[in-house]
């Protein structure tokens, strides 16, 4: 069996010999006045806290501590901290959202800059383009609504017809305000469906009217959800599934005295969704799900029980594992890469994945199968290196407290899903967080796993080639740089949101912002497609530029990590320089803004003949005089269409 090389931190607060529980450690940091300077240690503490028995309540307590910090002080003391600015407007009081929102964002290492609106201020604040919802640079405008927003419009004595009318009027009003927001606001507007309370339906004593109310209410909520389909910068959080998790919709006394119509528990769940939305805004959605095998994907231990002794179907427990496999496959079908890290021998594992009748997941569903006896933190690093991704884009699920503890302590940037001996709870645990949430899926997402698998064929060619040059010659790379149209808009926006390593300025753009640039004749928005003898890679990169009085400025260049080091980036820039020459534009300028992730492209511009043109630690500027253009690498074929 495995040797213990690295003892994970005990995760149970009950262990008297272990370190203090995370909430106590957080309080200690606060009382010692070190919370601001040691803010980076907050995220792992909160990750631990969230796994505790009273995770939700403890997160709120932690959020109360953290919400008293001055975000400007924290940002100043910790340069490079991701921040997200959020304004909240509501029908009820919105103060109770501050603590859970602060905690849920901090859990992802995101510092919250929060502006809370007035009680029942949402209509005025949506109407007034000078309100904090419209503040320049705002990331998220949360408009938190509850059923009273409609019921308050009813006469003292009402019939279902009154409710139907009020709901219709309110929906029309909201639709208009949303349009106003999309036109004048800069952030993403977040609405929610309005949960219906029994206190609402049962004010009607006749069942026919009650049913009619149910219909009208759901049509109203469906209308709200449709607003997100119409507007790219609108998200509607469906509260029904969050309410269905159980617990009271609100606390009647809090509702009556404090106008808190949505209870703490529900607001906590809402805040969790917002935490994941904030992650996607900052390009931090997880990309890889790494799964253990024994007692995670199947019942039993392959090494002890043999292939005939494990099950993922036919038995009660087996079926629960089979269900978990289905969910993993479902997630994998949407662009999340699946990988295995398992303490097993490789061959028997591959045999089971290829031939065992119970398996829903097959070997071809995984981009990497690491079955070996190395410590799992090392395995995760290995998988990350092979996929050319950071471990911070990983989610790791395992039933062993030892393994989850090890990974949580030695790789705190990995999101850990702690499973246990009850497989019927595996699915719930995996889906408890929206680790893989994105705004929109693209064709590339659905094909991603296949694209990564082809990568191993390329790796084989590289291994058999005498040199990198020989490999590239045989690869037959084709590159097409073209103006972005409707078909590639979502993918290009997504590249700006997800790409971290080859991202020269890390400017994140929502689809609506990409569209604005496409429609602006001074802007150039280009997609980069690539392919080779093994197949089409799809849209793998993007370049943003705009004309200036002096010439052309490249705002950003990004490239998927799948296709690094094939000359694609060089060909792309060369095509833009040639364009500037052909258009008679002046020098082409560009910038590099360092982040924690993009240091490998620090010397990219100079490598193509750009000259340093000043700048500071925040941003280095470069300029290309266009006297001599870099060559298109001879091993690839370049097409341009812009």
């Amino acid at each position, binding site marked *: 069996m495995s040797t213990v090389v690295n003892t994970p931190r005990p995760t149970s607060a009950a262990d008297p010999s272990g370190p203090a529980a995370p909430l106590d450690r957080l309080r200690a940091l*606060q009382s010692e006045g070190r919370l601001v300077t040691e803010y980076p240690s907050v995220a792992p503490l909160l990750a631990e806290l969230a796994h505790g028995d009273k995770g939700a309540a403890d997160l709120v*307590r932690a959020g*109360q*501590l953290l919400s*008293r910090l001055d975000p400007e002080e924290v940002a100043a003391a910790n340069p490079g901290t991701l921040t997200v600015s959020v304004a909240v407007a509501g029908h009820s*009081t919105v*103060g*109770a959202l501050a603590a859970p929102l602060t905690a849920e964002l901090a859990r992802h290492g995101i510092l919250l800059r929060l502006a809370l609106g007035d009680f029942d201020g949402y209509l005025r604040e949506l109407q007034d383009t000078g309100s904090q919802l419209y503040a320049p640079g705002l990331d998220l405008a949360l408009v938190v609504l509850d059923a009273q927003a409609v019921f308050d419009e009813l006469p003292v004595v009402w019939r279902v017809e009154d409710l139907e009318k009020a709901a219709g009027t309110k929906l029309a009003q909201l639709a208009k305000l949303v349009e106003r927001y999309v036109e004048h606001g800069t952030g993403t507007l977040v609405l929610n469906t309005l949960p219906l309370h029994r206190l609402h339906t049962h004010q009607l004593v006749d069942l026919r009217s009650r049913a009619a109310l149910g219909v009208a209410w759901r049509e109203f909520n469906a209308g709200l959800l449709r607003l997100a389909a119409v507007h790219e910068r609108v998200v509607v959080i469906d509260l029904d599934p969050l309410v269905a998790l159980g617990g009271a919709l609100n*606390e009647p*006394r*809090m509702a009556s*005295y*404090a106008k*808190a119509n949505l209870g703490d528990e529900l607001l906590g769940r809402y805040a969790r969704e917002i935490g994941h939305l904030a992650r996607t805004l900052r390009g931090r959605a997880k990309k890889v799900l790494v799964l253990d095998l024994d007692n995670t994907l199947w019942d039993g231990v392959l090494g002890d029980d043999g292939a005939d002794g494990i099950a993922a179907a036919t038995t009660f427990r087996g079926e629960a594992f089979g269900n978990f496999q289905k969910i993993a496959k479902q997630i994998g079908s949407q662009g999340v890469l699946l990988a295995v890290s398992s303490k097993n021998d490789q061959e028997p594992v591959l045999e089971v994945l290829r031939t065992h009748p119970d398996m829903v997941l097959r070997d071809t569903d995984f981009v990497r199968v690491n079955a070996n006896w190395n410590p799992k933190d090392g395995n995760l690093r290995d998988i990350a290196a092979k996929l050319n991704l950071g471990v911070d884009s990983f989610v790791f699920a395992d039933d062993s407290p030892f393994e989850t503890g090890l990974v949580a302590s030695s790789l705190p940037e990995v999101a850990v899903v702690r499973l246990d001996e009850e497989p019927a709870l595996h699915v719930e645990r995996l889906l408890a967080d929206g680790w893989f949430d994105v705004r929109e899926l693209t064709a590339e997402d659905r094909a991603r796993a296949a694209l990564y698998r082809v990568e191993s064929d390329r790796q084989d060619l590289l291994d058999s080639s005498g040199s990198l040059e020989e490999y590239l010659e045989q690869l037959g790379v084709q590159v097409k740089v073209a103006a972005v149209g409707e078909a590639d808009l979502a993918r290009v926006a997504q590249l700006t949101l997800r790409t971290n390593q080859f991202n020269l300025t890390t400017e994140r753009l929502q689809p609506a912002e990409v569209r604005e640039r496409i429609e602006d004749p001074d802007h150039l928005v280009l997609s980069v497609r690539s392919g080779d003898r093994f197949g089409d890679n799809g849209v793998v990169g993007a370049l943003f530029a705009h004309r200036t009085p002096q010439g052309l400025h490249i705002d950003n260049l990004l490239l998927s990590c799948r296709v690094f080091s094939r000359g694609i980036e060089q060909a792309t820039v060369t095509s833009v320089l040639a364009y500037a020459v052909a258009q008679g534009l002046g020098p082409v300028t560009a910038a590099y803004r360092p982040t924690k992730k993009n240091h490998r492209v620090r010397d990219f511009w100079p490598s193509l003949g750009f000259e340093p043109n000043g700048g500071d630690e925040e941003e280095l500027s470069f300029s290309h005089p266009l006297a001599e253009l870099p060559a298109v690498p001879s091993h690839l074929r370049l097409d341009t269409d812009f």
Partner: protein
Amino acid sequence: MITETAFIQIVRDELALPLAETDLENDFDKVVSWDSLHLLRLIAAVEKETGKRVSVGKLLSERSLRGIYTLLAA
């Protein structure tokens, strides 16, 4: 019944407010960043601690933590 020590502990713990000793006696206007949501959160925590239901409506008109504690301990 709840002791004064336990009450203060709950105030500090649940509300994460950096309260001075004198804040127990002070009018809420003088207590650091106090608002009515704090009161309701406090009541919920006290109820959880004692297992006894508190009459929120009566407490709302109190103006100091001392006043609230006196009502709770009565």
